[in-house]
């Protein structure tokens, strides 16, 4: 196909879009709504994934040392833990340090606990970090068997719950997105069908003059493509603007400072590109579906 033929298809496709008026608006609207939701879901799911991975990386094993253990025993335990396979580092945290961090983590209500500064009921602790987050559980089990250990806690459950939640969110998101995409394709193919029905006589004439199916399909293909691209403009603006806003408001809030979302650049741009591609894809697929039937005549 030559360049000027493609140019001709473009010209005709644009003409169709202008001629279809409200049907064009309706199908562009459908694509817009679809892509807005696709964008929101994708943004949410990818960020949840990112957070779950981050939290999993931070998972540590906390070993509470038996209150009866003396100083030698504590040191010995530390060395034993370090020798375990898969342990990357071990940090000692005295019971005073434990109390301070507890008070801090409680915020306002923590004041009450400062009463215990005289008679500290807490244990000394070791905080162990694993080489691979997935080995955390194995390390926890091994440490529990050592002498002088009171109890072992580790945060893997938090991460696993988060992963489970992300899985649900992903499944629901995909189902919703698939449904919306199909609706948008249906609406676009209907819009184009309208153009084609109005022009079925013309298409017949074109075929008599020797136009190939590809030649006739060209403008409709372009029309679908443009409908999809037009429909992705608002969602892309919303993603870029919305993400910027969310990013700046989250970094402004100290209380949820531990939440770390994917950085605007490049994430928001990548998301925009995905939205644009889905939009164009929906449009082209919709147009091909509707033209196919008419060309069989």
């Amino acid at each position, binding site marked *: 196909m030559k360049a000027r033929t493609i140019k*001709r298809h473009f010209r005709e496709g644009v003409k169709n879009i202008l001629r279809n008026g409200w049907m064009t608006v309706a199908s562009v609207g459908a694509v817009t709504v679809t892509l807005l939701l696709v964008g929101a879901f994708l943004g949410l799911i990818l960020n949840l994934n990112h957070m779950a991975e981050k939290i999993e990386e931070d998972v540590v094993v906390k070993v509470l040392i038996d209150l009866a253990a003396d100083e030698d025993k504590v040191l010995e335990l530390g060395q034993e833990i370090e020798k375990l396979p898969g342990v990357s580092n071990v940090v000692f945290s005295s019971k005073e340090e434990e109390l301070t961090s507890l008070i801090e983590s409680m915020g306002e209500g923590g004041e009450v606990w400062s009463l215990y500064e005289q008679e500290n009921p807490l244990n000394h602790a070791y905080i162990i970090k694993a080489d691979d987050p997935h080995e955390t559980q194995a390390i926890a089990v091994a440490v529990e068997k050592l002498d002088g250990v009171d109890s072992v806690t580790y945060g893997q459950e938090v991460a696993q719950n988060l992963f489970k939640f992300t899985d649900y969110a992903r499944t629901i998101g995909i189902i919703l997105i698939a449904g919306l995409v199909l609706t948008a394709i249906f609406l676009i193919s209907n819009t184009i069908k309208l153009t084609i029905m109005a022009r079925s006589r013309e298409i017949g004439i074109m075929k008599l003059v020797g136009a190939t*199916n590809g030649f006739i399909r060209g403008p409709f293909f372009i029309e679908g493509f443009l409908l999809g691209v037009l429909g992705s403009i608002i969602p892309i603006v919303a993603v870029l603007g919305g993400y910027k806003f969310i990013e700046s408001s989250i970094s402004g809030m100290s209380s949820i400072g531990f939440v770390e979302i994917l950085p605007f650049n490049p994430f928001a741009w990548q998301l925009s590109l995905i939205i644009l591609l889905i939009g164009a894809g929906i449009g082209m697929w919709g147009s091909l579906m509707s033209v196919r039937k008419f060309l069989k005549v």
Partner: protein
Amino acid sequence: MILMKDVYKTYDNGVTALNGINVEIGQGEFVYIVGPSGAGKSSFIKLLYRELKPTRGTLYINNKDVSQIKEKDVPLLRRDMGVIFQDFRLLPKLSIYENVAFALEVIEETPRNIRKRVMEVLDLVGLKNKARFFPSELSGGEQQRVSIARAIVNRPKIVIADEPTGNLDPETSWDIMRVFEEINNSGTTILMATHSKEIVNTIKKRVIAIEDGMIVRDEHRGDYGYES
């Protein structure tokens, strides 16, 4: 040029339109297809530009077996022939110039050649000064001349016309026939289905009469042969 051997056409509803047609038409001939309505003239014409496929028999055009042609090659077949209809079949939203140019755009001719060739054929049919008009702004005779221009613009070997003068008054019809004769004189084969006794009896050419799906008469410089 055109060769039909034992061609039968039965429609899906059981109606037999063509009942064993054998005919040969050479390059440069001018042939009238005559016969009463419903005798099979239109089916005969439609086979030629592959709107219909024969149920049985073989049909050669330019040494190509049209009954074996693949669906995707049909457009290529039609580029070697010009087709003209009673109802003109022009594209209403395109100007006269664009209508004629369309047949060349389809074969991806260069814009330069398109401009040159379109003006050439519009001149031939006497509509050079109406190139910018739209079909609805022209008279029936003028529209038919546009459709003739479109049919011959890519220099086809065959021109097929299905009652080209059917919608025109007698005087305009003679104009159209003059254009056809001119095209025929330059070596193009013309097949024309018609109901016009005056035309057939005045401009003497080969006449093929079809009745009940069969060729009942085939004579050079023949008469119309029916009381119109």
